[in-house]
């Protein structure tokens, strides 16, 4: 089907953000096939509602917002489902490692497998996961993340803080299970 030059140019520009959308969809759905379905639907919708995009604004954020809204509508059924934001309490991996004699603390991070880090991110509740994806992985500002998620900046900050707490707890558990650190102050970071 012949498309107008403006529509083609818009689609070309939108496709420059494909990897960002795909990564986000992959982390949200945790399934490559579902991620592709989600991204495809997001692009079809983006072109359908092209008129609502304001040129010169952040297209990546606009596309991501379409994709994550579809995720909540299609894959989660309802925004109220599966949004457990249980307060895990303050958990600071750095303090934990320091208390348990793992020195230097940052060396522990070097010993974590990338797959475990990805798994820890994917274990986060979706509302926490998406803010980590935007701010930590894709480098969105708090303002752009807030706009993308449709929440105030303060909500981005509090979700991000809690997400990082949960992430650190998961990584600590992994570090203990894999023998990188030992619970209760008996461990040291093994040297490679």
């Amino acid at each position: 089907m012949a498309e107008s030059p403006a529509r083609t140019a818009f689609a070309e520009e939108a496709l420059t953000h494909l990897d960002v959308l795909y990564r986000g969809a992959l982390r949200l759905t945790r399934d490559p096939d579902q991620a592709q379905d989600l991204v495809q639907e997001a692009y079809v919708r983006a072109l359908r509602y092209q008129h609502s995009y304001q040129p010169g604004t952040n297209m990546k954020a606009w596309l991501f917002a379409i994709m994550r809204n579809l995720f909540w509508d299609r894959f989660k059924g309802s925004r109220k489902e599966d949004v457990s934001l249980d307060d895990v309490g303050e958990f600071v991996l750095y303090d934990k490692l320091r208390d348990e004699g793992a020195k230097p603390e940052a060396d522990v991070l070097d010993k974590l497998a990338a797959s475990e880090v990805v798994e820890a991110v994917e274990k986060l509740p979706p509302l926490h996961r998406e803010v980590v994806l935007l701010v930590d992985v894709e480098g969105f500002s708090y303002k752009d993340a807030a706009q993308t998620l449709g929440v105030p900046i303060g909500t981005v900050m509090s979700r991000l803080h809690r997400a990082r707490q949960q992430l650190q707890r998961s990584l600590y558990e992994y570090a203990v299970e894999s023998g990188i650190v030992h619970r209760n102050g008996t461990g040291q970071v093994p040297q490679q």
Partner: protein
Amino acid sequence: MNCNDCVEKLDQYVDRELNNTEVLELKRHLEGCPPCADQYEFQASLKRLVKVCCDKDTAPAAFREKLRQILL
């Protein structure tokens, strides 16, 4: 700035969300406070680690081509 103020602002510091005045205050504190500096390094390392581990995936070439055919 004391250590509590510093720790409270570390998230925003690693995310580059503080204004210039706040950055200067925090940097000054970090220079004189090794425990807070260590904690900052740890948080910054964790953020880098999450990015490095999670931004490797790219859209499969076949999927990219399929989208181009649908959209262009």
